[in-house]
């Protein structure tokens, strides 16, 4: 079965500003999207080598008190990034 791993659009700029918060900047449109620290953590793992489950597992390793439904939230977050053209998918055999 093919596994789709999300991969960040390389054109998009991750601009870490204050503390662990950041914005994603799309230079083609000038649009910017705010990310909280969890969003930044996920974004950095959107390298085509991590699936959503692997990302959530890494999150559980790195952070305390990760909610039970974090996987669903992560999926929704990545889907929203995809809808805005910030994320795509590489197909692995």
């Amino acid at each position, binding site marked *: 079965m093919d596994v789709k791993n999300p991969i960040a659009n390389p054109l998009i700029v991750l*601009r870490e500003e204050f503390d662990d918060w950041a914005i994603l900047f799309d230079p083609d449109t000038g649009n910017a999207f705010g990310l909280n620290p969890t969003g930044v953590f996920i974004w950095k793992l959107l390298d085509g080598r991590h699936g959503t489950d692997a990302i959530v597992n890494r999150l559980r390793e790195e952070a305390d008190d990760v909610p039970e439904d974090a996987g669903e939230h992560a999926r929704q977050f990545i889907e929203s990034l995809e809808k805005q053209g910030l994320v795509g998918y590489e197909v692995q055999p």
Partner: protein
Amino acid sequence: MRLMRTPKKMDIDITNRCNLRCRYCYHFESSGDAGGDLPAAEWLRFFEELNRCAVTEVTLAGGEPFIREDLKEIIEGIVRNRMRFQILSNGTLIDDDMAVFLAATKRCNYVQVSIDGSMPESHDVMRGKGSFAKALQGLMTLRRHGVHAAVRVTIHRKNVHDLEGIARLLLEDIGILSFGTNSAGAMGLCRKNAEMVQLTTQERVTAMETLLRLTKKYNGRINAMAGPLAEAKGWLEMEQARLEGRESMPNRGHLTGCGCYRQHLAVRADGAITPCTMLSHIELGRINRDDLGEIWRDHDELRTLRERHLIPLSRFSFCEGCPYVNYCTGNCPGLSHTLVGEVNHPSPDACLRKFLADGGRLPDRALLG
């Protein structure tokens, strides 16, 4: 106050050359007028660092950016490194080929063209014969090819009575959405030509009243960050605070006049990194030699500038006894440095008390609309 990890934008004097010598140019004969141009390869290497620092936009200024024969190569470097850009120009060297190129990048926020008159007489007197027609042609060329063109009107003694005509030309005849105004400040060539260029107190009153009236007439389509229109709005606010007996105003009463070095840095044409185009005498380092992020976070000069807002205006003898001291920002540190030789000092040019003492009069508040 929290600081971003890296600057968000950079103001770059991409060239020290210009085809004009406007009588009030802030660049020439200032500290920013610093030798020859760097080759494109230096800028392209620097843009790679800006990319790593997640800088999102650059402003190309000079000199006149369009005088560079390799400007397209430089802009391609900006695009390749995931940034957007804007260009500040006198407009006279913009042709169809360049406008098509700029539009095709899809990264150009705007090109700002200087238009200072509604007719050649009030524009060319300061910028040189034939420059009005060429600047208008440049503006129209940009618009024809879908490049967002912004217009800046610099107000001086020879166009202060042409403001209505300028507004009609730009907003009605050409139909741009809005335009910005400022006035010739006491920097660069303007200092040498002050008598001819800088508004007298009475002309400043005229400019403030006219611009407020025109702004009302054109539903806010005239704006300003500095110059008579900005002063009129700011000073009326200060006077209202005084009349109401307010103790203070938010973020006032200290040297809070500028926070640009919390958002961006500048680079001179010779590659020296400075806090701001208006503070080009302060060299923080050099591109492709010093680490931009380290300069941004750790340079002592920047730290000092960023603490400037903690200095109360009441500390200065210049402000002693001023009824506006708790409502004032001290204005631009670059202008202060030029006029009194100190960055950490209120700018005399922006002083409401001095303006009134010199015979100035504030406009009617009703003009604010």
